[in-house]
């Protein structure tokens, strides 16, 4: 059962990437295909991030541990799409040179926010395996709570680049707000324990 579910997750999680390859190859992305690729990958990174954050509420609402068992996989897919999004953004929008990337990080708030969100994902991705989990013990949980600030950064990154119609980024930000609000009681508990 678990294997079947994980295989299905692998399959469906790779579909957006397959679509990008297919659409790019079949010229379905319009005259600015690079921008379309960047946007699509970014959107999926955010979606996977939000899906990952939905798993604990689902677990607590249903009592099924499977939601926690697939969490690492889905979280890694968020990291995977965020990394592809970043690489595509550098190649298609910013320019393929370190000076350009550093200047963009320095001057463009939305890029600063996006890169910060991606940088915060790095330690989470690296320490997602069992070895680190055991080694870090209780600190592992605290480390992985970085997902909250980084999800906020990702939503701000999206909101910041909109020119006029805030509907879509506002929707994602609202979903994140609901997911964070749901955890509010635990945040306060956590604050009391570590303050």
């Amino acid at each position, binding site marked *: 059962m678990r294997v079947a579910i994980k295989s299905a997750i692998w399959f469906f999680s790779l579909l957006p990437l397959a679509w990008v390859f297919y659409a*790019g190859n079949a010229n379905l*992305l*319009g*005259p*600015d*295909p*690079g*921008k379309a*690729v960047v946007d699509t990958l970014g959107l999926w990174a955010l979606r996977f991030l939000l899906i990952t954050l939905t798993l604990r509420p689902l677990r607590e609402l249903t009592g099924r541990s499977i939601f926690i068992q697939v969490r690492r996989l889905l979280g890694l897919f968020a990291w995977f799409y965020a990394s592809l999004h970043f690489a595509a953004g550098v*190649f*298609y929008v910013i*320019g393929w040179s370190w000076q350009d990337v550093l200047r*963009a990080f320095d*001057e*463009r*708030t*939305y890029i600063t926010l996006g890169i910060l969100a991606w940088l915060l994902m790095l330690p989470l991705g690296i320490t997602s395996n069992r070895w680190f989990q055991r080694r870090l013990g209780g600190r592992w949980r605290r480390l992985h709570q970085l997902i909250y600030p980084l999800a906020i950064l990702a939503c701000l990154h999206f909101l*910041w*680049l909109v*020119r*006029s*119609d*805030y*509907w879509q980024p*506002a929707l994602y930000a609202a979903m994140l707000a609901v997911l964070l609000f749901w955890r509010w009681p635990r945040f306060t508990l956590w604050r009391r324990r570590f303050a």
Partner: protein
Amino acid sequence: MLIRRPPDIPASEITPESIYLRRREFMAAAALLAGAGAISPHALGAEEQKTLAYGKAGPESPAGFYTKEAQTPLQDATHYNNFYEFGTDKGDPAEYAAALKTEPWSVTIEGEVEKPGTYGLEDLLKGNALEERVYRLRCVEAWSMVIPWIGFPLASLLQRVRPTSRAKYVAFTTIHAPAQMRGQRSLTGAIPWPYVEGLRIDEAMHPLTLLSVGMYGKVLPNQNGAPIRLVVPWKYGFKSIKSIVKIRLQEKQPPTSWNLIAPTEYGFYSNVNPQVDHPRWSQKTERRLPGSLFNPNRIPTQMFNGYADQVASLYAGMDLHRYF
């Protein structure tokens, strides 16, 4: 006097004999255009649009009127548009602009002119030989195209209605028709409708400033601003207001839509300027469309979009960082 002709009459302003002789053809085309509404109003695909008679641009045209850079394919120029009246997605205008009724169409000219009035489209076209201009189009979002427009200089229309000495600015308004323009019904958009734009009178009278009624040899598709739009090639694309219903000459600088939404991001002038970045992104380079996945086609952006020789003198002594 604010109204003056360019120092030399550019060759383009003299109607070539061949076109003059074809004027009946054009009138016939205009009549066809007028009748098109009766046949199959707005579902006309770009390919089926009526052809126009016009003087063709070429390397021999006056400097700035023609660029030999590769022209953007028609399909891209008509399916990748910012025309928020139909939605904010680049594909929305092509999908939804058919709902706009462009026939009949009239433009009200008012304010500081001796001959104000509401002119039918055919009336505006009368006496103006149509000519082609191949211009670069630079969007403020850092992409660009090369488009063969068909139209006539705004100056020739303004001269006809005789601006008074108090006419220091020209204000333009796009049609407000929420029933036909779904973007104007959007609840989450930030633009107060109708869309408005403006130029200083000397910018408006500049020979590069075009009132366009066609592109790629045919009448404008709705998504590109049919039936009549402005084209100001040295400014960011949003200055080139589409589907114009009102032109007002006035003494005061008019408000402009993007400036009203975000004054720190979009100035009144909005000249293409690689040295003045948009606060949120760089304007130093642009993606010349179409790009491909293997070649994003990023090229450096030129001062005044490459029209500095023609227009830089309009801004002599101005601090372009301040008046961006």
